[in-house]
């Protein structure tokens, strides 16, 4: 699970409609997700963003390992994400619209398939925040839970393919503060929990500058330092690396 995943999962929300909640009954899941778009910048702000490059750090405190991360994204469906940790090497992943892949110094290159590919393609949707209706056909408000002393709406978002994603949105602020799901990875289905905090304005959109993620036995924190808004990103940035291209060619030859 990487920064790109968390950002997109955290950014699962919808088009902006002004909402006012009454005390009772519970607001609809749709209205909660729409409110999230609104409080984080509004639909126009998201739609103005055609490309972005995010820079940050990753920190695995239990292991004592730190590294840098960079995430490139372009509308509608491309991303390239790289994490560089001196003791481990480079870990890359990406979606070029059709092929979802990853390449790491540890496990080598591979092409994602099945549910894992479907999840990666969803994550590659740069406007996932405002496209939630397309990505999650079924959404449901499952009630209120208290997180860190704040009442939060618990919204279950179910995609066509893959496990449901549960987002927790503060009743007061509308911001998403927690997200949990079971991620499909090649090593198996892994429970993932992300805690989002320290929302900051990055080029007109509020994003959590700090996300602490527990994925199976690992816990790490991703810190977003800066975001370049609408930079020129050469198309080659989203091209398949040679090692991945070689796997595609090998599969095609069989």
């Amino acid at each position, binding site marked *: 699970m990487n920064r790109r995943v968390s950002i997109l999962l955290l950014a699962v929300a919808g088009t902006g409609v002004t909402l006012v909640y009454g005390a009772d009954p519970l607001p609809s899941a749709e209205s909660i997700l729409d409110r999230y778009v609104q409080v984080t910048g509004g639909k126009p702000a998201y739609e103005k963003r055609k490309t972005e490059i995010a820079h940050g750090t990753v920190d695995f405190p239990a292991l004592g390992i730190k590294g840098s991360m960079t995430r490139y994204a372009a509308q509608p469906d491309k991303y390239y994400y790289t994490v560089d940790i001196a*003791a481990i090497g480079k870990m890359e992943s990406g979606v070029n619209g059709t092929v979802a892949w990853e390449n790491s*110094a*540890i496990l*080598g290159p591979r092409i994602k398939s099945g549910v894992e590919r479907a999840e990666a393609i969803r994550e590659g949707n740069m406007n996932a925040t405002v496209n939630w209706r397309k990505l999650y056909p079924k959404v449901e408000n499952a009630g209120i839970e208290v997180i860190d002393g704040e009442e939060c709406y618990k919204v279950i978002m179910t995609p066509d393919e893959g496990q449901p994603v549960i987002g927790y949105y503060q009743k007061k602020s509308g911001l998403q503060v927690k997200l949990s799901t079971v991620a499909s990875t090649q090593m198996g289905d892994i429970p993932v929990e992300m805690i989002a905090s320290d929302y900051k304005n990055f080029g007109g959109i509020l994003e959590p500058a700090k996300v602490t993620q527990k994925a199976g036995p690992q816990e790490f924190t991703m810190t977003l330092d800066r975001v370049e808004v609408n930079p020129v990103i050469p198309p080659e940035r989203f091209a398949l690396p040679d090692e991945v291209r070689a796997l595609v060619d090998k599969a095609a030859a069989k």
Partner: protein
Amino acid sequence: MEKAASHAEAQAVMQEMLGRLKQSHFAIIPATVYSVLDNEGEGPGTSGIDARVLDGHAVVTSVDPGSPAEKQGVRPGWQIERAHGIDLEPLITQARSNPAIHELQLTRAVLARLSGPIGGTLDAAFLDASGQTVNLRLNLTTPRGTLSAFGNLPAQHVWFESQRTGPIDQAAEYVRFNLFLDLPRVMASFQQAVESCKACDGLIIDLRGNPGGIGGMAMGMAGFLVDKPDQRLGTMYLRDSTLKFVVNPRANVYSGPVAVLVDGCSASTSEIFAGGLKDLGRARVFGTRTAAVALPSAFERLPNGDGFQYAVANYISEGGQPLERLGVAPDVVVELTRAALLAGHDAVVDAAMSWIRSQKKP
């Protein structure tokens, strides 16, 4: 426990309780055994000697090229009688009397006795090939390899070697490394070695003495050797998740014979790698049974000085067997002997090479 009148009684109760689990990696290590295993004089300095306990004696199994030991004429097969003024045989006998002490710990205890501060010296007594006692003062220098740090772990020297000369017939590539660490360098070196082996008759991966390291490296290295998709080395079961140790076949996979060499000091990631490739039918394993410590386990020192070992996960190799109880049993059992070492032979390498030759198509 509350009724125990002595440490010994408390120890017996704890052992009995843990015994009911019928699992390895759950043990009480008596404080008296710690006094054998611990060595206050241990340090990073080395004379370049690697050793194993063979037939109850510490025996030199290899000498690093260019090391102080090599320069002073120490040879594989020499028996180490004394180090820093301490007789090794009583230490070995006492440690071997406790079934909780496996070969890996025993070997480490012996090697610790041969170490000391960098810049210091080791006064050691050996029995040479002719049975004569040889007393030597060996300088202790920086260990071989590159100092590599991984997070909170103490930095360790990591080395990697590959060759087609020396003890190996030129037809095979021989690869050896001491730890699954220094990931970027070791993975790149492994890739280079495998790729250079495209036309050779076989690949020998020597994991003897390799205590493991980063588990993921076993999966990554297997990707250079396994071409079939959707394969795995095994599965690790944790409290809240299950991790499949998958293999991602590379675009260019080595398809020739692969021999993996192991011994009782091959542990953890080495066992995952060797056991997985064996189970997949991709490698033939030579040597002696591995350390059977493939699980993540922790040691806590108890208030009375005893140690408490407990496992935090379970690992089942792809063949369905838990490595933690059984280790990896070689396909071909080959034990080192002092006589063969003195004659300049590594019987395990010889056996692997012989098998590789037998696989050669006419």
